[in-house]
């Protein structure tokens, strides 16, 4: 299950590489992420029904086989359309496998309550681990390796299920009748959708800020975002000491909202300043996702169906977050890039450097801007080689630093509004969380 749910975020760090290699745009490549989450959101409940009808062992085995085949297709894709189609099939297979796993878990862990806890924890861990693992694979091997590695992992997970599937066929214990003994937990699922939208903003936008804004390599960005799963681990250790799911959910939502608000108010383009907000987001997401999933499943049967609803809510939230925030930050990035270039031009025009030196620099800077049209440019190479004369050298270094500062300010500021909207979404989840108690907890 963790494998499938990690997949919703595992490609985040690979997106810049994918869009460069497949020659698409930021908005276009976002669909690699959106399509997977959208299909997972739409397919989760029907998939859970299928798992109940066909038998969870058989459904999980088939789901994982489809997931493995589609992962292979993703890894071999050389066009954006093919990749997105394969991602859709991957999500459909994954939805069947994940919801069927919830039916199988009670037999493994002892009872339904423990099964729900383990299922929720796997989901939170998968979401938190995904970006770091994906970034490391992208840098060390390639973005295709993210998908190709999933093939043997899915097959390995599916092999033990074959025995269960055979047993289901032999004993005929397949539940062919759907019995609903409780409606979905509306408040918990709405809260899940809102907080998932916020978490998607945190994971997706931080990666883009690091790679596209601050020009870090995927592996360096993976190291930075690895703080999130570490903090999630700490958050999950805290959870058993607080019995109230509502308190855990509220605390988690506040931490996610606070972390995102801090990301929207970064006072400087320094990697170290990204870490504290990410610690909050990581700890918050493990608390809130687990607590809300447990709440949505508590006392409800069949578990697979209600698990399907939580899965649907979570991934619908991710889709809403991505679709709502992508246009905001791409528009802001364009505007801020223009502002930075204006500010940088002013720095050069007003510089006390000799006119001939400024002319030469301006020409080289213009060439860099033309080369990296539409992106936040790396301006350093335009200043190489530095002049030999010490006075000119210090003037050029000062100019380069001033220009880089303007570009850093622009890249960072371009993400502010999106982070703050994400924070708002996270904090809005406090409304259904507070209502959940009065409704039926």
């Amino acid at each position, binding site marked *: 299950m963790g494998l499938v749910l990690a997949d919703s975020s595992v490609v985040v760090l690979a997106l810049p590489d994918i869009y460069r290699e497949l020659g698409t745009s930021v908005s276009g490549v976002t669909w690699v992420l959106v399509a997977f989450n959208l299909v997972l959101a739409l397919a989760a409940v029907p998939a859970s029904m299928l798992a109940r009808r066909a038998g969870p062992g058989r459904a999980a085995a088939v789901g994982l086989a489809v997931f493995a085949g589609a992962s292979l297709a993703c890894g071999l894709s050389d066009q954006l359309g093919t990749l997105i189609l394969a991602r859709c099939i991957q999500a459909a297979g994954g939805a069947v496998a994940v919801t069927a796993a919830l039916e199988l878990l009670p037999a493994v862990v002892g009872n339904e309550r423990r099964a729900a806890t383990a299922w929720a924890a796997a989901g939170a861990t998968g979401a938190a681990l995904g970006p770091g693992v994906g970034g490391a694979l992208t840098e060390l091997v390639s973005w295709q390796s993210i998908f190709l590695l999933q093939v043997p992992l899915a097959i390995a997970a599916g092999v033990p299920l074959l025995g269960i599937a055979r047993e289901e066929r032999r004993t005929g214990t397949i539940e062919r009748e759907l019995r609903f003994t409780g409606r979905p937990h509306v408040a918990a699922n709405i809260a899940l959708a809102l907080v998932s939208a916020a978490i998607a903003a945190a994971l997706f936008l931080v990666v883009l800020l690091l790679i596209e804004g601050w020009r870090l390599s995927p592996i360096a960005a993976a190291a930075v975002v690895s703080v999130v799963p570490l903090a999630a681990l700490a958050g999950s250790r*805290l959870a058993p*000491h*607080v*019995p*109230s799911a*509502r*308190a*855990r959910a*509220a*605390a*988690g939502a*506040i*931490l996610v*909202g*606070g*972390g995102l*608000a*801090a990301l*929207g*108010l*970064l*006072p*400087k383009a320094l990697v170290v*300043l990204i870490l*504290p*907000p990410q610690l*909050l987001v990581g700890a*918050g997401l493990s608390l809130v996702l687990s607590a809300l999933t447990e709440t949505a499943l508590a006392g409800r049967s069949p578990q697979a169906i209600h698990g399907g609803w939580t899965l649907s809510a979570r991934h619908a939230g991710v889709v809403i977050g991505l679709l709502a925030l992508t246009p905001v930050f791409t528009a802001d990035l364009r505007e*801020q890039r223009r*502002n*930075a*270039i*204006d*500010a940088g*031009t*002013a720095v*050069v*025009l*007003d510089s*006390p450097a000799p*006119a*001939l030196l*400024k*002319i*030469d620099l*301006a*020409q080289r800077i*213009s060439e860099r801007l033309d080369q990296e049209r539409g992106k936040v440019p790396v301006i350093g190479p335009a200043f190489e080689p530095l002049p030999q004369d010490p006075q000119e050298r210090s003037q050029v270094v000062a100019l380069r630093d001033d220009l880089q500062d*303007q570009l850093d*300010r*622009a890249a*960072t*500021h371009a993400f502010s509004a999106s982070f703050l909207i994400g924070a708002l979404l996270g904090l809005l989840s406090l409304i259904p969380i507070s209502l959940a108690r009065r409704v039926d907890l």
Partner: protein
Amino acid sequence: MSVDRGDDRSRLLVGGAVLVAALLVIAYLAAGGASYEPSQVQDPCKPREWRNPQDLQAIAEQFSLSALDGAACQLHVSRETLARALTTQERRDRFAARYGIGDAELEAAVRAGVQRAIDDAERAGAISPILAVPLREAARRLPVDEAIQLIQDARPIFENAQGFLGGVFGLLDQANGLIPGGVRPLLP
């Protein structure tokens, strides 16, 4: 009893989350998080202070920047946008298409820019009032093609500035013809 302990832990957890989140946000705000954005460029229509020019080259450079300001003000764009637009022919064409600016409008803007530069130079004490008069006259009589060439000859951003310098020197040469003994003795 265990319920009470549970309630205490719940309150502690939520209170701790609020405290940590608020402290981080306040710390980032205090460090300038709300204002970390690119500097705003100055309105080209507002006067810009001249640095004390030490020599003719410095005067000419500030003169060209003032001319850029004046032309940008006339065209309702920033000085920086206009300066970049004049770097290459391709950029100039893109600029003209984007802002819907025709040749005549650009010529008028350049003339206005040169006049503004003379005014600014006089105000800053970079040129004497005695020189400003013939310079204005020379600028008015400067053929439109030459005024346009100040921009059109420019390829990189400061080749344009050089173009302006050429224009200034051209104006000075014309002024030399108007003033016996030339203009250089009139410079501060």
